[in-house]
């Protein structure tokens, strides 16, 4: 892929992360919170592939590190990387890479197959990886026990499962609307 295409796509998905951060937190029934930025991680992985998704999320985090208020709640600046939730932030690039790596290896011959692959890739990278990093962060930085950290992170899982489905719907739409798009960054559509 040409450097100009990479630059444009990476910047686009970093912007998508910023947009999701600027949208207020949504509360599902029973008070389950849902923020959309992990959806951005999943979409980057599924649509860009591992390397460019990693680049997009790192670019976004650079903007945050420079003080731009791009995290949900208008947060930004270097201090967020030392806060108790830093594990989740640092899990985003890894989650994007894993999502992309899995998506590149799963079948995407038809829009329906691509959507199913996106659910699996999103669950592994966008949910499992990010939550694992988040739990480690809560244990290491906030001093919570493993049980407390796991219970604290579980509240976000229903929302993240919903995001895996949303990601799959978007991938399905892209597979139908842009059939030449290389899902997962694969070498051929």
């Amino acid at each position, binding site marked *: 892929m040409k450097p100009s295409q990479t630059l444009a796509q990476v910047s686009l998905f970093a912007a998508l992360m910023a947009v999701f951060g600027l949208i207020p937190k949504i509360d599902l029934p029973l008070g389950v919170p849902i923020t959309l930025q992990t959806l951005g991680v999943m979409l980057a992985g599924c649509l860009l592939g591992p390397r460019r998704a990693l680049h997009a999320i790192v*670019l976004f985090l650079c903007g945050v590190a420079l003080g731009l208020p791009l995290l949900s709640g208008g947060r930004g600046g*270097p201090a967020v990387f030392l806060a108790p939730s830093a594990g989740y932030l640092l899990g985003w690039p890894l989650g994007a890479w894993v999502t992309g790596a899995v998506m590149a290896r799963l079948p995407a011959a038809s829009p329906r197959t691509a959507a199913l692959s996106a659910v699996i890739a999103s669950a592994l990278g966008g949910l499992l990886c990010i939550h694992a990093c988040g739990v480690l962060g809560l244990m290491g930085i906030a001093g919570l026990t493993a049980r407390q950290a796991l219970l604290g992170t579980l509240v976000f899982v229903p929302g993240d499962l919903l995001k895996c489905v949303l990601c799959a719907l978007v991938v399905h739409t892209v597979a139908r609307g842009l059939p030449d798009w290389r899902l997962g960054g694969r070498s051929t559509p």
Partner: protein
Amino acid sequence: MGSLYSEHRSWLHACPAGLKLGVLALLGAVLYAMHGVPILGLAALACCLLFASLGPATRPVRRLLRALLLACVLLLGLHAALGQWQAGVLSVLRLLALTLLSLAMTVSTPPSALLAVLESALQPLQALGVRSERLALQLALMLRFTEHFFVLWRRLDDAHRLRTGRAGGLRLLAPLTLRMLDAARRVADTLELRLGD
């Protein structure tokens, strides 16, 4: 989304950006290695004094101090609810110290200097596909695309409301994605003409 850098010079403005970032990262690690309330209290007090010593240079970030205090109260409350008062006090002291240090760094370091440091710091990630050159251009594109997302979202939402009488909500995510991917392709073509690669 303006910069928090202060043009009002303080003693910290003279320190190189890389040094300040490195010290911030090191102090962050040291603060998390400390576990006593007295020593963390002293560290937090030292950070408060450092922040205060910057004088008028802290003006751009003073409004953030209220949010910091609120975060401290919530953090203490969360730990109190779990029956962990001491852990709550330690967490609050660390949050105070680190936030004040990073705010001091933010107001005393121009964004261009931070960009240069980040470009250097990202070079090891080139093997994983992260291109650190032209970071300023990438960030500028990111901000431009962010603005375009909202413009396009508003147009799609207005069209949806005209057709259905209801807000589009998450139903617009798919058409918005297609439009933005198409926009990225057009931007890529322009970049290729301008940059020659």
